[in-house]
């Protein structure tokens, strides 16, 4: 087991940031860690990397307790902290060399490790530049290069794409996809499409507790709001609702007049129910003209909103 978190809790002066969370991550998994601002993502990551001691509970990285066996646990981790703190007055290559040596890369291999990390993250052209003069995107890449320079088994990335433009986000995403084979990755982000693309598993945390832990697809499927069917018919609401109410799977119906006798209906259906065929047949039997029939699957965004906004 790569990460084993048991009842981890962190209290700051009277406020509980992380409230007894437990989860496991197996080697090779890529896990997205989601939650609204202040949910406790960064706090959890800081505990996993040994920066903050837990108030109670325990966490192990590769079998080493992060608090009692901290150095061993930290050796397994490449961590990219939130906002990527860096030494402004060091040069890129110099910084990475320092970091590689510090994280225990053998002296003979420091150079090649740094070169490899810089190539991976596209830092070749800025290697001699002062970190303080870099743009946000390049700073972010330096942070990423730092996290993986010593080839750790586990990468913990706190909002690696925070503040990047769409091109850069895409680059970082493909970088993460490349890293996936070699490393276990736990990453937090607010960009849900990113998670849907790169992560096979999502943990959603809100107010310090875990609200969901599953694949993105499974989460969307289980979501209560899953299955909204939109249908546009040339038929009046009274007639349609009378017919449709008879279909057991429909829970809610909303209609709107879109002109020339056309009406647009939104149908909430029970999770997992398929009513489109039935609807089409109904329309044909009643001689309603039909011009649209769509099933909307719940997106991760729907899941996120549902789980973190509902009180």
């Amino acid at each position: 087991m790569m990460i084993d978190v048991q009842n981890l809790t962190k209290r700051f002066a009277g406020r509980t940031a992380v409230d007894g969370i437990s989860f496991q991550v197996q080697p090779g998994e890529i896990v997205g860690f989601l939650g609204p601002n202040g949910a406790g993502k960064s706090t959890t990551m800081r505990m996993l990397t040994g920066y903050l001691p837990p108030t109670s509970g325990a966490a192990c990285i590769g079998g080493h307790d992060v608090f009692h066996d901290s150095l061993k646990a930290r050796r397994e981790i490449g961590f990219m902290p939130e906002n990527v703190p860096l030494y402004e007055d060091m040069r890129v290559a110099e910084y990475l060399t320092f970091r590689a040596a510090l994280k225990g890369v053998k002296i003979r291999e420091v150079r090649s490790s740094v070169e490899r990390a810089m190539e991976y993250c596209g830092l070749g052209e800025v290697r001699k530049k002062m970190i303080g003069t870099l743009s946000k995107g390049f700073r972010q890449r330096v942070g990423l290069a730092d996290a993986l320079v010593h080839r750790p088994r586990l990468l913990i990335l706190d909002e690696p794409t925070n503040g990047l433009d769409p091109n850069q986000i895409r680059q970082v995403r493909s970088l993460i996809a490349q890293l996936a084979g070699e490393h276990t990755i736990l990453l937090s982000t607010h960009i849900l499409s990113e998670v849907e693309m790169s992560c096979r598993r999502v943990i959603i945390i809100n107010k310090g507790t875990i609200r969901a832990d599953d694949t993105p697809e499974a989460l969307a499927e289980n979501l209560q709001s899953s299955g909204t069917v939109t249908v546009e018919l040339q038929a009046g609401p009274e007639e349609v609702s009378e017919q449709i109410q008879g279909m057991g799977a429909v829970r809610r119906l909303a209609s709107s007049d879109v002109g020339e006798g056309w009406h647009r209906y939104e149908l909430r259906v029970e999770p997992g129910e398929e009513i489109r065929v039935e609807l089409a047949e109904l329309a044909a039997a009643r001689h309603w003209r039909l011009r649209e029939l769509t099933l909307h699957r719940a997106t991760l965004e729907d899941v996120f909103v549902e789980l973190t906004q509902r009180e």
Partner: protein
Amino acid sequence: MRTFLILLGKELRAFFLSPVAWVVLALFMVITGQSFSLSIGLLREKPSDFSIVRWTFFPQWFWYYYFFLFPLITMRLFAEEQRQGTLESLLTAPVRAWQVLMAKYTSAVIFYSVLWLPALLYFGLLHWIMRGEVEIPLGALGGSYLILFATGLFHLALGCLASALTRNQIIAAILGYALILLHFLAGTFLMYLSQENPDRMRPVLDQAVTMRHMDYFTLGLIDSRPLTYYVSGAILILVLTHQVLEYRRWKA
């Protein structure tokens, strides 16, 4: 040990690549050089109770610049790290907080020692040029260096403590200066008390009055008690600094 050396290397590089450090070094060479040549002039005019060593290292204006030196050296050490947030990346690497602390402190001690090296060169030159016509009092020279080093250890530790307490370099400098001055003034206050009441105060005095220590040591009178005082004081303050760093990180 390897970790410590890597950290120390980084700190030393930060010192010797920073322009402030070179300004301090240059200023310091001017100050000691000026004191040195003035003291030669002084001693040529009339004999003095004090040796050339004493006049060089501790001219009248010594106390004006001596205390400024330490905050200048130490203010950046932890404050800057805390401002940039780099303590987080540093302490999530397989590194112990005390290794970071000792590396920073050691680098400050090394820089401080380097500041005093040119003076040694002046004496060497003097000796070489005068071909033994002037006697350099080696005991006094050794004593001066020893007491400067010992007080340095102590004051640099105070500077580190100040720097750990804040994320603002300027505040760290002011705070460090205040701590050092406070310790010094406490010593002079004791000295003042002892004039009222010489016998009872004597033992206390010998322990904690920096000015008195310097007087003795520059005469070549080397005493182990003040050395113990400064070294153990430095250790105590470093332990305190470690606690401050951990507390600020964990801030429960």
